[in-house]
């Protein structure tokens, strides 16, 4: 399996994502420069974290018009899995691959800290390796992570099981204190209605080895690779 990791000017989690896929899990990974028009026959696309275009105007607002985004949108529309992390989530929302938007943290502070997440649904190719209500731990590092969407969109996401991760206490309780950025209903990660585009503010690629303090990101990557392998066999 091969992952295409898109590099925008200002991406800074591209190497972490590469290491997660290649160094830790032993799959192929390639970098795709944002000006390219070639995803190099990858099976999955990663939009990594960072500060593409310096977050000018709004995070992700300019990156969404990068040349390669045309291929990324086509890839997603054809059902290809896209993992959009942090700035990647912001870009995916701006590109219309996911509903809603990420706004400035309610505290107005940049937050770099480990958080606890509750896995809300395992019926997706990204979360099949977890169990429902499992509490996992991985870091966040963002200034603009407050997920927001209009009330109808939030109801639809909830009703269709498209909220995959929520900020919770270590015991799995959804409280306002466990919500680092003011996201509506503590939403940390969502999937599109096709089930193939995951957007999340926390960093699974930084929770891959004991040295990183957590290995809770591993099942996310293995879930999607196993789902792809099962698809090839079928």
């Amino acid at each position: 399996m091969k992952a295409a990791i898109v590099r925008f000017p200002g991406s800074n989690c591209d190497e972490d994502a590469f290491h997660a896929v290649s160094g830790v899990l032993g799959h192929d990974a390639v970098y795709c420069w944002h000006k390219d028009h070639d995803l190099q026959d990858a099976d999955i696309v990663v939009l990594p974290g960072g500060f593409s275009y310096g977050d000018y105007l709004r995070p992700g607002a300019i990156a969404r018009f990068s040349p390669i985004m045309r291929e990324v949108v086509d890839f997603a529309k054809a059902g290809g899995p896209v993992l959009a992390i942090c700035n990647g989530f912001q870009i995916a929302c701006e590109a219309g691959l996911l509903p809603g938007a990420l706004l400035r943290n309610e505290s107005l502070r940049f937050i770099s800290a480990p958080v606890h997440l509750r896995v809300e649904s395992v019926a997706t190719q990204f979360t099949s390796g977890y169990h429902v209500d499992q509490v996992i731990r991985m870091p966040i590092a963002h200034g603009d992570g407050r997920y927001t969407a209009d009330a109808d969109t939030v109801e639809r996401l909830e009703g269709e099981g498209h909220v995959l991760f929520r900020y919770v206490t270590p015991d799995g309780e959804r409280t306002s204190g466990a919500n680092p950025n003011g996201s509506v209903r503590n939403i940390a990660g969502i999937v599109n209605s096709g089930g193939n585009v995951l957007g999340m503010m926390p960093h699974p690629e930084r929770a891959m080895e004991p040295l990183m303090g957590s290995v809770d990101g591993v099942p996310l990557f293995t879930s999607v690779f196993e789902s792809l392998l099962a698809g090839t066999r079928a």
Partner: protein
Amino acid sequence: MTRFRLAIHIVPRRGILDPQGKAVTDALHSLGFSGVGDVRVGRYLVVETDAESADAARASARSMCEKLLANPVTEDFEIAAVEQS
């Protein structure tokens, strides 16, 4: 073609929490501006563009806002002024 100067205001949509606006409101209250109700902090852009007419410049500005300058999920925009520059 004439060169126009467009003044565009972009503000967080009413009903969406604007923590910057709230911080400014609190600061104004503490300075004694007790009559201040709601403050929202947005962006102000000045765009120079060539267009056939002021109406065309305004239409172009609207399109710029819809496509790039404002986020339709969270922000409202207003084309405050169109002047010949």
